[in-house]
């Protein structure tokens, strides 16, 4: 019979000691972390006015809310009921089309602005520290202020309608895409860039022929992803009067037009699914083009 070879106890003891100490230290960290988490939760629970009694009392209302917004569809008059549920389908689709166009225009202009700024924010292309600093802080400002805050201010300046929504999304997209773009640019192969510089190319020519061919497919892929996000974002911009279907949605919710709420939500969720699916197909196509 074979036995497992072990170290003599004199050598084993210090090793075992080190192991126990390491495990104990890890456990102390774990308990400390959990303790901190619980303390923070209690503090936030107090500051956030968490009230479980209210929650339990309100929970039936949550369930009944979903029951209330369900359409009344009967088997015998199914199509008539369906028509009644989506009574304003044309109007809602027109508003949804507005929302999609707001997201599209915002994404497009944001992507163009982010494209122009990303090279200035990249450490490998912009030697001037102050220029780079300025570009990075601008992008950070654009993406940190929530787009709905921009929308509120733009509604004040430009009046109600889709334009404030477009601008708000464009600014936020500039910040988000500019950062992602510059991260891509910082990871390019620098040899083509050096070759072009050595051959006497200007800055613009270097970027055009040295960098852009390497990054364009990534840029398009990020832009498509951002479009998905912006479609979701644009549906709620209407809450503050910045155009699209959001205004209709918030007024139906506030005025308790239950069936309309579910109809609009169904249209929005369906569209979001559709857009996600289409952009995913496009992005896979793009990646396979890249792999040639």
């Amino acid at each position, binding site marked *: 019979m074979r036995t497992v070879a072990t170290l003599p106890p004199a050598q084993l003891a210090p090793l075992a000691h080190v192991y126990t100490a390491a495990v104990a230290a890890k456990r102390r960290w774990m308990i400390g972390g959990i303790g901190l988490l619980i303390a923070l939760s209690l503090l936030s629970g107090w500051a956030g006015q968490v009230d479980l009694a209210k929650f339990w009392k309100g929970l039936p*209302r949550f369930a009944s809310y979903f029951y209330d917004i369900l359409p009344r569809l009967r088997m015998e008059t199914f199509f008539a009921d369906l028509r009644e549920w989506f009574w304003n389908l044309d109007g809602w689709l027109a508003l949804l089309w507005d929302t999609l166009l707001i997201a599209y225009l915002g994404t497009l202009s944001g992507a163009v602005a982010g494209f122009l700024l990303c090279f200035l924010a990249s450490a490998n292309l912009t030697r001037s520290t102050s220029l780079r600093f300025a570009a990075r802080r601008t992008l950070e400002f654009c993406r940190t202020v929530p787009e709905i805050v921009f929308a509120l201010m733009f509604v004040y300046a430009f009046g109600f309608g889709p334009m404030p929504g477009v601008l708000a999304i464009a600014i936020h997209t500039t910040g988000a895409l500019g950062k992602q773009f510059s991260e891509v640019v910082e990871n390019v192969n620098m040899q083509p860039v050096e070759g072009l510089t050595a051959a006497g190319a200007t800055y613009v020519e270097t970027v055009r022929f040295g960098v852009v061919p390497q990054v364009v497919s990534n840029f398009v892929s990020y832009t498509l992803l951002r479009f998905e996000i912006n479609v979701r974002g644009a549906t709620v911009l209407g809450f503050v009067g910045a155009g699209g279907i959001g205004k209709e949605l918030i007024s139906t919710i506030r005025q308790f037009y239950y069936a309309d709420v579910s109809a609009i939500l169904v249209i929005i969720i369906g569209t979001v699914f559709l857009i996600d699916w289409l952009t995913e197909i496009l992005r896979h196509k793009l990646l396979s083009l890249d792999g040639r």
Partner: protein
Amino acid sequence: MNSPVSPLRARADADRANLKRRYPASFRAPLLARLLPPVTVALATALAVYALWRFGFSPEKFIDGLGKLGIVVGLMIPPSPGNQLWNYVGALGETLSIAFLGTLGAAILALPVSMLAAKNVVANRIIHIASRRFLDTIRGVDTLIWALIWINVVGLGPFAGILAILTSDFGTFGKLFSEAIEAADKKPVDGVLSAGGSDLQGFRFGVLPQVLPVLLSQVLYYFESNTRSATIIGIVGAGGIGLYLANEIAQAEWPQVAFLILMILVTVSTIDWLSGKIRFAVIGTQGRTA
């Protein structure tokens, strides 16, 4: 001495006309590939022009608005809290609480559901697809809409905000977690099972140690992004600093608006920095896996 042009290249150059005749495809990009960029750009521009036309865009109105915006920005300087500083600080505390509890609650609730939605844990196709669609539907509804629904249940205030963030992140986490669990290496599980462990032990000792750092990093990333969402959730009445922001904009108190925006900027950057540190300590890289 080497000539600058290799002999192979020289021979190919001499034979260029012949090569071109024999392999025409190699000398000319396919028509589709050549047409794709200009056609895409033309279509994108056409759609943009149509959208501008539909929105009744006019340069005069735009410049007019820009002028008004310039005046507003001028009025914002210097930013000042007025006499509301402590109200603002309290509201910021509410915002942070909303983000923290919402993210934590969503993560705790999403873990069991994400196992149902992961192919390698629950092999039943129907459960898998049903839980995926369920999570997608929750995700398809924006946080602000969830906030409006929860306000009906628990009334105005930050609690509704917590529940709204919790609900919408529950959908996101469920999806992200299940993807992380599916991407886990199967070999440790096989090891545990072959040593006589149960399925549950296989998950606990085979999968969980692999995915926990990934999940933690995703939770931290969403905590950052929820801090941002929690700043605006007050616009519909669900607590936090957004309520003040919307009110001050409606009353055109621009110095106070600027102050609130600065507060949001500082808070979000601090949380960004902090969670970056924690992520680095936990998984050893600063990489964002979301």
